[in-house]
């Protein structure tokens, strides 16, 4: 019931994310994919029950990918992260992998996570993965969507208290 009550509010995307997408989505070498939750359900139905239940709770998945060249200006990136924090996102984890900096941010309503943002910022690539839905923390590392960038969510531990702090 708690999930149902939160569903309507979960649909509103962060203005910080929207503005950033609008700034870069039409640039050359940028791939922009946006999927409504219904489409994700169609594509992933038939998986085991626990994955299926998780997929049902995704309302939107959006990915912006820059391959071969990262054209995001440093100032724009810093502004994005700063605006996300102003918009109630919390930085969960930051790590470095394969020469790229990866940040995972969350937005929550009580114990329910309504938004997940994964940012991969490298010299030759940039990925912004934005997921909206209704999740528990332990769901996040089970989100095996087989989409560019989503594999980094598997670095998250099962429990929030096990997230490494600097």
């Amino acid at each position, binding site marked *: 019931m708690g999930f149902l009550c939160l569903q309507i509010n979960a649909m509103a995307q962060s203005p910080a994310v929207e503005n950033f997408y609008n700034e870069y989505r039409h640039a050359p070498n940028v791939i*922009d994919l946006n999927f*409504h939750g219904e489409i994700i359900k169609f594509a992933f139905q038939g998986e085991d029950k626990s994955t299926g239940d998780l997929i049902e709770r995704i309302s939107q998945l959006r990915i912006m990918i820059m391959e071969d060249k990262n054209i995001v200006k440093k100032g724009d990136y810093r502004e994005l992260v700063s605006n996300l924090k102003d918009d109630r996102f919390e930085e969960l984890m930051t790590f470095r992998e394969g020469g790229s900096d990866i940040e995972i941010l969350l937005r929550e309503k009580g114990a329910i996570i309504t938004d997940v943002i994964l940012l991969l910022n490298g010299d030759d690539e940039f990925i912004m993965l934005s997921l909206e839905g209704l999740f528990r923390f332990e769901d996040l590392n089970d989100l095996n969507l087989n989409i560019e960038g989503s594999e980094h969510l598997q670095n998250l531990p099962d429990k929030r208290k096990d997230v490494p702090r600097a």
Partner: protein
Amino acid sequence: MRTISILLLMAILPFGLQAQRSVKNFYNQFSRGEETVKFKLPGFLIHMGGGIARKHIDDENGRLAMEMTKYIKNIRILVVEDEDQIERVDTRQFLQDAIQKDNFEELITVRDEETNMSILVKDRKGKKITNMLILVQESSELVMLSMKTNLKYKHLELFIREIMKREKIKIEPPKDAEDKIEMVIPRA
């Protein structure tokens, strides 16, 4: 009571007429010509055409697509191959207007350097799709399909899953974090 009903109808009628103004405005920007095709079709003609076409199409996916035409109530089609006309229009603004003013919702958007494809829908209580807007734009061609439909999400789901089954589209799990995963579509 009758007076109240008439007044209520007069109050809501303008909203009904304004529905999909963004689509009409976009459609009207283009003039018919050698490189621009635009027309509207009522549902019964689509069903008839779909039924006939099904018998003559060899491709299984094509036949499946023709079966879906039974859910279309009417369709407005626009095909533009005039690069000058394509360059002049602002499809971003059109899609934004469709979402913000006409209450469409983005179902899928796929955009890269060469192609811009968006499917927007309006639905009723998350169960039935009442309107569907498909826009595909490349540098040399623009196609817009605007449909009133009687399509349920489960019909769309069955259609997509059937296509995926026929095409044997698989989504393979990553072997490791370095592995870039793509949908595997076997070539014929």
